[in-house]
């Protein structure tokens, strides 16, 4: 059995003190990645700092700024939250596609992002929605666009002792349809082989692709062809995604397959959001 200490925090100060006091302290929210990683030896904590009981991290609300999702909010809560379903459809679909129903009762959006898998199913949707990540540390708070949060596989902009406080889907919301389409080996309980989020912003499109580069990436060449070049042939536009991605071969799919399926999913995404 693994041996470490555990502290259940009742406020953020307690969490920061605990994280500072022990070099091998890990924050614990849903724990669905952490527990698996600990068992496999990927993470070797000496102290688990349980933050899921903090009221301010359990916030799930919509106000004049947009939709705020606290770091202790579970994926099932997000996938069913009416303002997300209505205004941030790619995120509702991405959150709903993670793991299985019981896993989503524990797993959090913040955890999915901090794990920083390029295949994280909630990440591409947040790129397509222009999400802001709010970080909090013992001395300061800071915010950044999700593009700046993801640095590489397993790497984020989080500094030691810092926590994700919340994720903001800012207003104005996109005026148009959005989708997240995932190709995976099985219907559930698998990361995406390729995941594509496409969001129509009042006639302009914003596209992000997961599992095809060290971080999720925007399909900027496709966006340019559609938004600036006026391309209406979605199949031709989707081909541009080859310039935006650099996939590798791994257990979920080959490099060649990923190039192919990314193009297919981008085309479908354009058809579904921009009209056939």
């Amino acid at each position, binding site marked *: 059995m693994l041996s470490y200490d555990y502290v259940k925090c009742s406020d953020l100060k307690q969490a920061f003190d605990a994280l500072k006091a022990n070099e091998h302290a890990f924050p614990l929210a849903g724990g*669905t990645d952490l527990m698996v990683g600990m068992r496999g030896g990927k993470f070797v904590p000496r102290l688990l700092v349980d933050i899921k009981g903090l009221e301010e991290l359990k916030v799930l609300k919509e106000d004049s700024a947009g939709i705020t999702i606290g770091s202790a909010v579970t994926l099932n809560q997000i996938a069913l939250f009416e303002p997300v379903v209505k205004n941030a459809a790619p995120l509702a679909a991405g959150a709903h596609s993670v793991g299985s129903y019981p*896993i989503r009762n*524990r797993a959090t959006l913040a955890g999915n992002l901090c794990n920083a898998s390029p295949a994280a199913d909630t990440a591409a949707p947040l790129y397509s929605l222009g999400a802001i990540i709010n970080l909090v540390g013992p001395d300061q708070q800071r915010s950044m666009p999700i593009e700046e949060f993801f640095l590489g596989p397993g790497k984020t902009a989080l500094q030691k002792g810092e926590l994700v406080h919340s994720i903001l889907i800012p207003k104005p919301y996109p005026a148009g349809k959005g989708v997240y389409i995932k190709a995976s080996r099985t219907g559930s309980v698998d990361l995406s082989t390729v995941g594509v989020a496409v969001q129509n912003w009042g006639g302009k499109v914003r596209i992000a692709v997961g599992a095809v580069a060290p971080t999720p990436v925007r399909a900027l060449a496709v966006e340019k062809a559609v938004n600036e070049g006026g391309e209406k042939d979605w199949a031709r536009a989707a081909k541009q995604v080859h310039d935006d991605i650099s996939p590798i071969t791994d257990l979920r799919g080959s490099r060649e397959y990923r190039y192919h399926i990314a193009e297919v999913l981008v085309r479908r995404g354009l058809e579904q959001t921009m009209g056939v």
Partner: protein
Amino acid sequence: MTKKVTINFTVNGDRETREAVVGQTLLKFIREDLHLTGTKEGCEIGECGACTVLLDGKPVNSCLVLAVELEGKELVTIEGLSKNGELDKLQHAFIDKFAFQCGYCTPGMIMASKALLDRNPNPTDEDINEALSGNLCRCGAYQEIREAIKASAKQ
């Protein structure tokens, strides 16, 4: 030295105060400390669903929860479904429809199904597929499991 934490919780309707070892999963705690061995250990990485229990009414993989996280929570295991020695109607439906062969996945299947019926008394095939997406049956009794859930819903 093994570190222990005192936890207060409810299991199958009874209030309990126990010591839990830090680092012990809820699954091990249920089986080895509470001696409720109906909850099964399968993959231990949240993929098979054999260890599904209800925590505050919601299905979770008990292999991905720490025992110390049980503090203040209400836990229901497969043993909690029968009342006065009489099986729950969902358990009867599983027997009537022969919704298993080896039976190893059955406690997890029933707990996930119970949670589904609690939140959605008349589930469609699609609702059932989604709710049980985290529960694997290597004998392949999925069709019968769907029938058992629908039969129980009708009663």
